[in-house]
Structures are given as structure tokens and as C-alpha cells.
């Protein structure tokens, strides 16, 4: 039993790490494929001005797919991004899993200057499918960073 649980935890951890790798490489179609058909993506940030969490991006899969597919049409921040993730803390219950993962996102300009772009924590809910794979029901980046050096067309 423990072995099966460890296997599930490791599988979920791999999904979370893979999420970051795909974004760093801008493989957005592959990134989208990590979501369940009922899945949703969010970026939220706490606003001390309003004293509540404020969504920066909140879309179900269908809208998310359209938005991400149109990324190439935009004039975009030219920086390359790099995620650095802590080990995801995963709880598995049957075919559902919950994961929390602190992350740091760095940004390197075409001139070569790097800077810290965003820190936060992924709060994720995942579901296991019949083929044994895990996919996101909800993938949420809770940003601690509230002021960005550049705004983003890309998910974080």
C-alpha cells in the first residue's frame, strides 16, 4: 500500500515539475494537455489594498486553450523564463490529489540580465484517469509578488 501511495505522490510531483518545464520551454499545447477537460487555471494575488485575494487570470480549459493559442499574436515581453520549484507536498486520497509547491520564477532579458520575476505557491487539485495518468482539475499560482517588472501573456 505504501509503495502504491509513494508511486502516486511521485507521479503527481512529476506532473507539477513537468508543468514548469513546459512553460519554460513555451510548449504551451503540451502544458494545456496536463489539464482535465473540466480543469481550470488561475493566478491570484492578495491585495492588501482591498484586503482580499484578487484573480489575475481565471479561465476554464476551453477559454484557456483559446487564450494560450493566441499568445503568438501578441507583442510580448522578450525575456526568457526559468522556474525553480521546491519539492511538491502531495496528499493523495483515492483518485484525487492535492499539491502545494513553492516556486520562484526568474526572468532573463535578451541583454543577459536576470532578475527574480515572481515568487509564490502552486495550489493544485488533480484527478487520476483510467489510464493512471494525473491531470489538473485546478492549477492555481498564488503569487506573493504583487508588482511585476513586466506583465505577462504567458501562464506562470
Amino acid at each position: 500500500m505504501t509503495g502504491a501511495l509513494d508511486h502516486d505522490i511521485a507521479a503527481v510531483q512529476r506532473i507539477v515539475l513537468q508543468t514548469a518545464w513546459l512553460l519554460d520551454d513555451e510548449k504551451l499545447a503540451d502544458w494545456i494537455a496536463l489539464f482535465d477537460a473540466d480543469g481550470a487555471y488561475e493566478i491570484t494575488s492578495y491585495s492588501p489594498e482591498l484586503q482580499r485575494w484578487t484573480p489575475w487570470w481565471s479561465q476554464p480549459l476551453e477559454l484557456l486553450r483559446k487564450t494560450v493559442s493566441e499568445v503568438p499574436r501578441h507583442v510580448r515581453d522578450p525575456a526568457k523564463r526559468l522556474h525553480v520549484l521546491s519539492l511538491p507536498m502531495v496528499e493523495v486520497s483515492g483518485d484525487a490529489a492535492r499539491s502545494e509547491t513553492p516556486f520562484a520564477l526568474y526572468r532573463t532579458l535578451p541583454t543577459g540580465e536576470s532578475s527574480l520575476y515572481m515568487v509564490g505557491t502552486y495550489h493544485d487539485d488533480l484527478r487520476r484517469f483510467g489510464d493512471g495518468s494525473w491531470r489538473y482539475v485546478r492549477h492555481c499560482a498564488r503569487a506573493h509578488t504583487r508588482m511585476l517588472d513586466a506583465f505577462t501573456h504567458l501562464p506562470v
Partner: protein
Amino acid sequence: MNPGHIPPSLPPTHYLDNRIFTDPAIFRAEQENIFAKTWQFVCHESELAKAGDFRCTQVAGKPIVVVRDEAGAVRSFYNVCRHRAAEVVRTESGNARSFTCFYHHWNYGLDGQLRAVAKPEGYEAVGLDKTKLGLVPVRAELVFGFVFVNLDDQAEPLVQFLGDVLEPLRQPLGDAPLEVFHFHKAIVKTNWKLWQDNNSERYHSMLHAINRQTQPWVLGKTSPMRLRLFPHGHSGYWSDGQATVAYERGGYDNITGGTLPGLQDNEMRVVNFFPDLMVNIRSNVVRVDRMIPLDEQSVLIEWRGIGLKGDDEATREVRQRHHNMFWGPAGRNLPEDLLAVESQYRSMKADAVRYSILAREENLNPTDDANLRAYYQEWERLMGRPASAPYGSSASPTAEVTA
């Protein structure tokens, strides 16, 4: 001579010397002559919903606290203790029954009156008069729930300063209670006026992939939108009651509903208040840009999303989705605007090309530059120098710019 330093062969009203954006002396003069003299939006009244709710901000580089007092009035003060000038309030927002300076514990009421000093016996010898040492008040006035302050006691009343540019906002902002549902901010590496220019001129709408799709008039020769000019450099553009955004052309059909009073579905109205405020309405959501210029090369911009108070969950979600689609930090349009104004500033700082051209004349079609020209006429009036030749006959910015 660098040909880029030769003024264009245009009327002086139709171009700008880019050094008005990069000269620190001009920036300091703007703080004194514009920001310390004109009405400055600081927050929406929904951010001060209850007695004791406060917001801290800056105007013309000076720390300000705005608070709702026990009687329900909105008051504003310099956020500076009368004792030794520490900031009395040190958080951006919150609720307080009174304000106590953290340094020596002088205590002020929500009305600004000095209520108590620590160890008062120490002042008995000099007869300290507490009634004369309250927080220094700053004029605060409201219109449609928007809270403005003015550091100049001699300035004309707010509604008189804004005048008829308020009319297109009267129904959408005045006919039902509103609240701020979204707030974000960023320090943008540009001169503050370039952001106001970006918010004012529609010629750049073609920068935005989504606007090229959903606003057919962006690339066309005619538009249902008309540019509107008002005294004091205020301007705007709106239609005469027609829908102006064709969301269906982009396949964005899930952002309608909850249309604000007096508007058509998919109607857009934009009002630019001199010197630094924009109110942009897309049928069911209001975006408000407020600027706090930090120096000539950086500006703190606050973006607010405003909608009807008391929304049900589904309607609020539509408003938020619509807001974030264009105007959130991960929106479709805002990242592009920031890239543009930061690019402008980098080039202007290098002074390779010295002049910007504001020469479009299109009978007040939205891509006409008439509103920019009117804006800079007001800037010139307050600054006492032409924006096309801010150093007079001298070609050098070493000429003193006085406040």
C-alpha cells in the same frame, strides 16, 4: 548636427520636444505646478466603506492619508505627525478608531484633531496647544464615488474643474452603487505623461491583436466613436449610444452581462482627466488608472477594476473575466502597452530623435491627435513653457526650469 534634433516642419502645437519626458528639472516643476495644483484621484469611496477605513497614498511626492470619519465624511490629511514628522499611518489600507504615531505615541482622531500626547506634563512649561497641532488637512471632494484631493487651497471646486467631461460617466458611475473589485499596481519604467498619452490616443490600438479583431474602426477610416475635447485638457471618446466593440469577431462571447446603467451591451467610453487619470468603461466593467509619478523615469500606476456593488457570483465572474482579459497583469492588452511606453522612454533618454509628432487631424475620429494637442496646451499653460521648445531659444536643458 544630428538630423533627429531638427524640429519637424509642423506647427509647434503638433510636436513635442521629448526632453519634457526625460528632464528631471521639468519633472520637479511638474510636481509643483501640476500635481500640487490640480485635483488628484486617490481612491474610490468603496475602499472607505466604514468609519475608520483609511487609504494611504502620495500626491506630488507628499504622503497623504484619506479616511472616513465617524460622521461618514471622507477626510484627507498629510500623513505626517506634527511632533517629529514620522508617518502616522504606515499600512496601505485598514481600519482604525484613531491614529497613533508609532514613534512617540501622539494620538489623532479620525477628524485629524490631536487628542493626546504621551507624557503631557513635559509640555506644561510651554503650554502646548493641542488644538493647533492636528494632522494638516488636505482638501478632499467626491464625484460619483471617486475621491479626489487637492493640495492647493485656492483651486476651483472639483466638479467645476472636471466640468462637462463628467457627462458620459453620469449614468454608468452615478446611477447605482459601485465598488472596486480588482486592484493591481506596478512601477513602470517610463515618464508618467507617456502613460497618459497611451491612454488618450487611439492610434496605437493597432498594437493590440485583440483590438484589431474586435474594434473594426481601429484600422478603418470611420468610427462610431468620436473624440471629445473639454476645457482644462480633459478629453474622451465615446459613441452616441452605439455598441463599439465587436467581441464576436474575436470569438469572445462570454464576457457580456451586467451592463452598467445607461450603456449598450459592448459599448465603450473612455474619459481622460487632466493630468493623469483615465476612466475606461467596457459596458460592464470600469478600469481606472491612477498614477503616482516617482521621478522623471518611473511611475507607480494603480489599476482598479470597478463594477456594480452587490453582484451575484456569476455576474461578478463575468466582470472579472472581462476586466482581466484586457486589463489584468496577465491580460491581453496591458502587457503590450507597458512594452510600448518603456520602449519610448529608453529611446527618448538616449536623445537620438528629439521630437514626437502629434499631427493627425481627422475631424475628431478617435485616431485624431486633437486630444493630445489639447492636453499639452494645458500642460504648457501650467508649466509656463511650450512643450515643443521647453528651453526657449536655448537648445540645452541646462537652462533652469523653475517651479
